[in-house]
């Protein structure tokens, strides 16, 4: 059964990518153990990670199984990045990795040695809001606020990468980010306004 929404490519991509990443996220030590159905208790695999988050270089020792999302939220208290599905389907966990928007729930933290991460907390300068954050407030582009961080991170790259040429192109780019409260129209209004001002973001 095909739903009446006119675009479907994104969904089927999501489903395939989800299955792949799920396999990837199962560390090989356990896959092996699981195959023979015997578990040998072993220490939690700890690995060193050097990563820059919001301009600050960190040297960490982390559980090898940790996703970037859980590293941010549980270990480093960057709770502005949200957990919505852990399947790469909702976009609430969107961050920038070396300037590119990425769903952090789909990334093993260890694969990001020496990468530069920007989270929602890194967009504003102290109390001074980023123009996209200010536009989201002006257009009331959220209700509960839970998908907002991800929407804003996507919105910034939407404008930066030149995808904010029309409402339709903004919508297509932003289809990666679900808002269940239904603030979509206001989100597009906010993005269109920031794009129109031409301010470098």
């Amino acid at each position, binding site marked *: 059964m095909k739903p009446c929404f006119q675009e479907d490519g994104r969904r089927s991509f999501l489903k395939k990518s989800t299955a792949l990443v799920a396999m990837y996220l199962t560390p090989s030590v356990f896959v092996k153990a699981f195959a023979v159905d015997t578990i040998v208790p072993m220490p939690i695999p700890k690995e060193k990670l050097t990563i820059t988050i919001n301009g600050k270089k960190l040297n960490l020792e982390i559980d090898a199984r940790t996703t970037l999302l859980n590293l941010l939220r549980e270990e480093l208290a960057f709770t502005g990045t949200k957990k*919505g599905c852990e399947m790469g389907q909702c976009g609430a966990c969107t961050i920038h990795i070396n300037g590119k928007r990425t769903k952090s729930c789909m990334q093993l933290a260890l694969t990001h040695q020496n990468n530069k991460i920007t989270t929602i*907390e890194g967009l504003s300068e102290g109390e001074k809001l980023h123009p996209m954050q200010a536009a989201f407030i002006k257009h009331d582009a959220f209700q509960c606020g839970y998908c907002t961080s991800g929407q804003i991170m996507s919105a910034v790259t939407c404008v930066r990468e030149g995808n904010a040429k029309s409402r339709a192109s903004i919508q297509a780019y932003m289809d990666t980010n679900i808002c*269940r409260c239904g603030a979509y129209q206001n989100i597009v209004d906010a993005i269109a306004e920031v794009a129109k001002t031409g301010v470098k973001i």
Partner: protein
Amino acid sequence: MKSNNNTIFWEDERVDGADKVNGKAKYAAEHSLPNMAYAVFVTSSIAKGTIKNIDTSKALAMPGVLDVIYYANCPSVLGYISNAAERPKNAMEWRGHKVLHDNKVRFFGQPIALVVADSFESANAAIRFVKAEYASESFETNFDKARLDTKNLKINSNYKRGTEKKFKEAFAFVESEFNIPIEVHNAMELFATIAHWEGEDKVTLYDKTQGPKSTQFTVSRTFGIPDKNVRVIAENVGGAFGSGLRSWANVPAACIAAKKLNRPVKLVLTRPQMFSLVGYRPQSWQKLGIGADAAGNFVGISHEAITNTSRYEDFREGIVDASKFLYACENVDTKYNLLPLDLSTPVWMRGPGEASGCFALESAIDELSYKLKMDPIELRLKNYTTINPENKLPFSDINLKDCYAYGKNKIGWKNRPTVPGSLKENGMLIGYGMAVGIFGAGKGSASVRIVLSNDGKLLLECGVSDMGPGTTTAMTILASEAMQMPIQKIKFKLGDSDLPPGPSQGGSGTTSTVGSAVDLACKTLQQKLKEIAIKSAPLFAGMNAEVLEVKNEMVISKSDANIKMAIVDLLKLANQDKIDLTITSNGKTAAQLKFTSNSFSAHFVKLGVNPKDGTIKILQVVTTGDAGKIISPKTARSQMLGGVVGGIGMALSEKLEIDHKTGQIINASFGGYHVPLHSHIPPTDVWFVNKPDHNINDIGAKGIGEIALIGLAAAITNAVYNATGKRVRDLPITPEKLGFKSKQSL
């Protein structure tokens, strides 16, 4: 922006907006406590039966795993004792599935064990090694099949006025069946609870709930401890849409684990668990008959409905209620039965009852309008009533006529083809449709603490929550207007059960209930200020409180504006560092009970259907609300926009799919359960009548959360009929239902 004597009282923005755009707003799972452990549910892989054994040894051997809690090692919980005689008086029986308590499986995906570890990774890695052995039993999850056998039905309620099935004698009538599948709230924030026992009988919870006070009550009764020893914090709630109106398995499970391990425990549900553990809109079957005379006057309405519930709890909603009183009609009969299935229990979902009921009623009226060759808006106007025909009480206010007039003009109703399927634009079949929504407008009791400090700042507190509609903003605006002082000096605090008791946020009642308390608190404070002025300031000596007013942060004489004193100076003069009052506003007064109070909406849709593949593109929506005075225009508009998005999902895509051979939900993810995305949303206009309804409360405001969605799905199916001549009565509308072969499976 609003001004008075050049003083700006409030900016037209969300007062908590900055925290939500910069990531500072904290939701339940985002609190961190020292020595906190992480818990993850293991869920059943059968739909019904008994667990014979759970092998936890492998999971326990995994690194970092602290415990696996299940029925065999679960500490006793007073509220789990079924026998009232054995249960202590301070405990109340837990409603619903008693998680981790017994070895019964009642639905597929039911939590059967809880893995607790020192990190999320360790807990998550261990769940797959918890092995359960079951003795399966036969089960039924197939609503469509089970409802056909009347033995399966539980009679819930019947209603009749006038003659039963009178519609069949009318000049023209329709009788149709409507099916709505299970829909799931799927708020973006995952349900989460952090439980921290600070003593043997004292617990603090960070919880995703629409009611901090109701969760406090549930937890105190379940564990048999005093209310004051349970603190529930929910400062921010990432959407809930009704799913947070009761406590689910995550609440007792987190409390049990935290107590057993003697350390704080964080339990976060997964997205798939959000489909089966926190309620849903029940599946429904409805049969609606409606008939009218040649002039269009309704002769009779018969409305029958069945909704599903679980085997272990009855959940009912007002699915047939709107048919009793939305339109003038002498002969109305309704029947409502429940169908227990081997699924988890449903719960209120945005527009509970009426969203399903109005889909049937408003579709049938549209159908009838074609039979009568009458414009559907004219038909509704013909049967317009200002008196509730069920209880004969007048509506406190009703302005649906204004909604019709505005929406008709704005959507371009004059372009609507009278012959379905006859209008084409850009290669698409074009259709126009409209439908009405209605929901009760309540007013309950709430307490508010108001604190005016001698630095001129005003603090208000109430133990309600804000899941997104903008309660904090609306309450701050109300206080700003009542006190005639700038919004920047006002703070409204909510989301904590330690604050004065407020209602759960639900049923579109928060603004009316808490707003009335805020208004009363401000008026009480003003009276107090006047009394202090007369007593302490020589300027006002001997004056009567009636001749004074409080505005612009001053106490001023009404007759001579030169006789005035700043509030801060007054407090200093009176040697008071603050005024601290807690007031309670009660439910409806006797005068208010002489009315039926409702909010109303009318939605107008223009859409195009692709004649090649049957896909639908919504081109424009005009949504209008009749809900008294709009306190916070910007957030209210957003709420209406959100209702449209929810309604589009209900109409075009949302459907929970169950494999009836296993009882398993097979589309428990956003990849399988489609909610509307950016691209699916058309330009939408929002309009409010915005006329105070003082018959319900002093502030004149009613709720809009439900009416924003109720009726929207019918407006869309009515427009699809107008575009194609095909009447879809089973949601969601797919190309298949319009006679097209689906191009590909999902």
